[in-house]
C-alpha cells in the first residue's frame, strides 16, 4: 500500500484486527448495500451506518443536513477527533461513499479498510452480532465542502471548458445502449448516453478480485497512461446516483494524488433527465494524446 499518493488513508485487515479494542480513539463503521448485512455479523465493535436510511434525506433529494450528520456521529460515539475506519460489502463501494460524506462534512481522520468485508470474511476473521454502544459525543460538523461535490451548473461549465470528466458506469450505460444498470430498472433516465467529452472508466476496474485496490502502477496505467487523465487538472466523476463515482473519487484523490477531484452525485439520474442538457451517445471518443 505504501506506493499510493496518500497511503495513510488505507489500512489492512491485519491493522484493523489489532485495533479492535481501541474504541476510545477509533470507530469502525460498516456501510453496506444490503441493509441487513451488518445484523448477520460484523467486525467486533463496528457500528452501522446505512447509505440510504442514515445518509440520505428521505424527503429532499439530497444528503442529510449538517445537524442530522452531527446527530448520526454523536449517537455512534464519533467525536471530531475520532479516527473513523470505513469498510463494507461490494468492494467497499458504500464504504467509500460514506467516507466521501464524512469528508463533505469536514471529518478529518477517515480511513478505509482495504479489501472490505469480503476480505475480512475470506480470511476467516472474527465476526460479531453484538451491537456495540459507545458514550455519546457532541459532534460539530462543518458546512458541506464544495471542493469535493459538484452540482449540475458547475458540471455544465466544466464540460464547456472541455474539463476532464470521468463516467464510471458500465460501457453499455455509457454508450446509451442501456438506460440503467442491468439490476436497477427504476433508476433510469429519460435519455441514455453520457456527458459530452466524458471518458468511460468503469469503477470496478480499480479493484482486484479479493476486493483490495489495485496497486499504484496498475492504477497509473489505467487512469493516466491509458485514459490520459492529468493529475494537475480538475476532474469530475459521475455515475448513476453518485455512489460508484465516490469510489473513483477516492482512487483518484487518495491513491493517485490528483489535486482537484469532485463527485457529481446528481449523476446520470439528474443529467439524463435534465431538460436541455447536452448528451453524447455511442462509443468513447479517442482522446488526443
Amino acid at each position: 500500500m505504501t506506493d499510493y499518493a496518500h497511503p495513510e488513508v488505507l489500512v489492512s485487515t491485519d491493522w484493523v484486527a489489532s485495533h479492535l479494542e481501541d474504541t476510545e480513539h477509533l470507530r469502525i463503521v460498516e456501510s453496506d448495500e444490503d441493509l441487513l448485512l451488518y445484523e448477520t455479523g460484523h467486525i467486533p465493535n463496528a457500528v452501522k451506518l446505512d447509505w440510504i436510511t442514515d445518509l440520505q434525506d428521505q424527503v429532499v433529494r439530497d444528503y442529510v443536513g449538517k445537524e442530522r450528520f452531527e446527530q448520526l456521529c454523536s449517537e455512534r460515539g464519533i467525536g471530531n477527533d475520532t479516527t473513523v475506519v470505513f469498510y463494507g460489502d461490494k468492494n467497499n463501494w458504500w464504504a467509500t461513499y460514506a467516507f466521501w460524506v464524512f469528508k463533505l462534512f469536514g471529518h478529518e481522520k477517515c480511513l478505509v479498510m482495504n479489501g472490505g468485508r469480503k476480505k475480512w470474511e475470506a480470511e476467516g476473521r472474527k465476526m460479531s452480532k453484538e451491537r456495540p454502544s459507545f458514550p455519546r459525543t457532541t459532534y460539530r460538523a462543518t458546512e458541506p465542502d464544495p471542493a469535493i461535490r459538484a452540482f449540475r451548473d458547475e458540471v455544465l461549465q466544466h464540460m464547456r471548458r472541455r474539463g476532464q470528466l470521468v463516467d464510471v458506469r458500465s460501457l453499455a450505460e455509457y454508450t446509451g445502449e442501456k438506460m440503467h444498470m442491468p439490476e436497477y430498472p427504476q433508476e433510469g433516465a429519460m435519455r441514455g448516453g453520457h456527458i459530452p467529452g466524458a471518458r468511460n472508466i468503469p469503477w470496478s476496474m480499480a479493484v482486484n478480485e479479493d476486493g483490495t485496490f489495485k496497486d499504484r502502477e496498475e492504477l497509473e496505467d489505467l487512469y493516466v497512461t491509458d485514459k490520459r487523465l492529468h493529475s494537475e487538472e480538475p476532474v469530475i466523476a459521475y455515475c448513476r446516483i453518485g455512489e460508484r463515482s465516490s469510489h473513483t473519487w477516492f482512487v483518484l484523490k487518495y491513491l493517485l494524488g490528483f489535486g482537484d477531484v469532485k463527485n457529481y452525485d446528481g449523476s446520470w439520474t439528474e443529467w439524463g433527465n435534465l431538460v436541455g442538457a447536452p448528451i453524447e451517445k455511442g462509443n468513447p471518443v479517442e482522446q488526443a494524446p
Partner: protein
Amino acid sequence: MTKFESIAQEFRGADAPLRLELLIDYAQRLPELPEKYRALRDAGLNLVHECQAPVFLAVEVEDGKVRLFGDVPREAPTARGFTSIMIDAFDGADAADVEEAPLDALHELGLDSLLGMQRTRGLSAIYRRIKDEAGRKTAV
C-alpha cells in the same frame, strides 16, 4: 384474510426496528431448496435478473395451487428475507389469490419506507415474477 394479508398486518403493526428483525428472522427461516431445483440454481438459471444478488425462483401451479421455491445467498439477507416472506405467503395459496394480491407488496409490508426507494426495485421484481408466473401457468 389471506396469509399475505396477515403477514402484512404483522409487519405494518411493527415499528421500524422490529420490522427489520422480522425480516432477518425470515431470512434465517428460508426453507432449503428442494433437490430437484439445485442443478438449475447452480447453473445460474431461473434467476431474477433485476436483483443484484443471485435470487433463484421457481413457481409451479398444480390444481390451482401455487408452489413456490427460492434460494438466495446468506450474503444478501434483504433479498433472502423477502423471498422467504413470499414463500410463507404464497406457497400453497390459490393461484387466483396470488394473481389478485396487491400490486405493491413492498408498500403493504411497510418495507418501502424501511429499505429506502433505491433498494426496493429488485424485490419488486421478485414479486412481479411470482405473480406473472402464477398467472401464466394457471392460464396454461
